[in-house]
């Protein structure tokens, strides 16, 4: 009995270690490659002198960098990735600044008011999540080509991408925040009504402060969503490259410069990594919109 038990234990531990290895390897390998000197990047060596050169290269303007006497080529025409980082920050930031307030008041109304079509509307909003992004991108591509803002076509601007991002972020945020409002007991609001508050006073002074943690979690999810968004960024964002699209500029005449891709990848990944840790407890809820509890 004890013998078979310890064998089971051994199998279980092995499985756990394999799972950990399977999960962590791509991330660790990316991080390792990003600090590898170029001559080691194209090997599977794990012993090397760490360097910050790759990060220096992706954030520099020149196409060739001289480091310790060796010339190192940049991808494509030596694009500095700093503007792309800013584009991603501006687009994702503005997307949540617009979407979250709109979603919050809508989610509150869906949760607290019974009105005609409440449930049907809510389910319809859920199904908009399943519309393939490409079908949204096509008409906005043709539309934004013909709309000019300050004499520049809307296509390829941050504003254009922010507008299109609404199609995925807003419905998502409504569902998510509605869940947090639902979880809040209504008695406090009832008491406030009895004390003579009107609907808006209850919403802004009683309920909103109480669901603030939920709103924060939804904001983080919405930020991650637009930060990682690729299809819209490619079709609508175009030359205004977000970081996801800027990853592609690490490919040059001699193929992809993997050490630069890894460095850029780490810049893309790290902020989301910390945000993901912050919303760890809500990930399942966020991914399934409460369908799996």
């Amino acid at each position, binding site marked *: 009995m004890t013998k078979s038990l310890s064998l089971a234990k051994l199998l279980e531990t092995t499985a756990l270690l394999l799972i950990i290895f399977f999960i962590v390897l791509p991330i660790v390998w990316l991080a390792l490659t990003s600090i590898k000197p170029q001559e080691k990047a194209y090997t599977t060596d794990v012993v090397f002198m760490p360097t910050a050169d790759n990060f220096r290269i992706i954030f520099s303007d020149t196409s060739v960098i001289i480091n310790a006497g060796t010339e190192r080529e940049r991808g494509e025409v030596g694009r500095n990735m700093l503007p792309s980082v800013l584009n991603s920050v501006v687009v994702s930031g503005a997307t949540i600044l617009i979407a979250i307030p709109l979603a919050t008041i809508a989610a509150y109304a869906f949760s607290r008011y019974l009105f005609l079509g409440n449930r049907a509307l809510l389910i319809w909003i859920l*199904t908009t999540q399943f519309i393939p992004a490409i079908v949204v991108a096509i008409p906005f591509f043709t539309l934004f080509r013909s709309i000019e803002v300050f004499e520049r076509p809307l296509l390829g601007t941050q504003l254009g991408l922010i507008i299109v991002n609404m199609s995925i972020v807003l419905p998502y945020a409504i569902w998510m925040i509605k869940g947090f409002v639902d979880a809040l007991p209504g008695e406090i609001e009832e008491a406030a009504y009895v004390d003579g508050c009107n609907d808006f006073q209850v*919403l802004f002074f009683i309920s909103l402060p109480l669901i603030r943690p939920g709103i924060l979690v939804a904001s983080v999810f919405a930020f991650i969503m637009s930060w990682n968004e690729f299809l819209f960024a490619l079709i609508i964002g175009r030359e205004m490259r977000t970081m996801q699209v800027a990853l592609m500029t690490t490919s040059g005449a001699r193929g992809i410069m993997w050490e630069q891709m890894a460095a850029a990848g780490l810049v893309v990944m790290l902020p989301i990594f910390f945000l993901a840790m912050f919303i760890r407890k809500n990930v399942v809820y966020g991914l399934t919109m409460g369908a799996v509890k």
Partner: protein
Amino acid sequence: MRKKRWVPWVLIGPALLVIVLTTIYPLLAALYYSFHNYNLRRAPQFAIQIGESGIHIDWSLLSLENYTRAFSDSRFINSLEVTFWFTVISVGLSVVIGLFIAVIVQKGGWLHTLTKVLLIFPFAVSPALKGYSWRFMLNENYGVYDLLIDSLLVKPVNALLSLFNALPLVEIPYISESIVWLGDKFWALFMLAMSETWGWAPLIALMFVGALGSIDEQIFEAARIDGANRVQIFFRVTLPLLRPVILIVTMLKTIFSLKMFDQVVTMTGGGPVRATQTINYYIHQMGFVRSLDIGYASAMSYILVIVLTICAALYVALVLNRD
């Protein structure tokens, strides 16, 4: 209660307006485009013309040509097949491996807890980056996956084969150590699905861990007292109890897989020879890269919309049934 009836509409109004403009407008516009011969290289001619003499509809400009073209376009059919197989492999592996991980990590010591914490890691990696990192690691010359597969799988299997082949029986061919993973039609699609599985199996495991935690411990206890072993408990108790959650998760993952695009661009570029061109990728190629055929791209994306609508309806039915 003194709640006013117009208040909810004021609160929902702005959000509803934005959702309608960013989802209903493109859905209608794409449907309209899909009936036209609309290529950005030529000046478009639209059926609805609004002028001084009022609204005029030129029916002759509308046709189903883009739809009939899609079903006789071997590349579109190919993209349907690729998407189908990608979905089957990635959903199947993600759900099965996710379930496996969940059952293992659910209860236990610190190693279990550590694994549970690590499960969220792939969530931080964007799909585009996932594609690039897998492409890098699968490289036949310096990829770490290539190295691992060769040294941990191929070499031991070949060593066993050489023992077997030493016997005067049938000769079994050795496995090649120089497979170019993304250069082979089967392996490219399989590895694309594997990269998706890497991202999703841990997250699905998290979903199952939550669901497993809500099952009453006494049920397992009773099964154990009745003499059931772990395997029996898994198949006779855990699996039936998880069935509703498994169905929902499978449906949700199917929808995500059908929409797959990012990694195709960054990992395989649709190749080799169209072996990994998913529907979304082919639509993007026809609408924005190889040709600027907006009408055709719209028609194909509408076919995808129809497929996804069916899946979404199934998903909503599953979720509502459960409540």
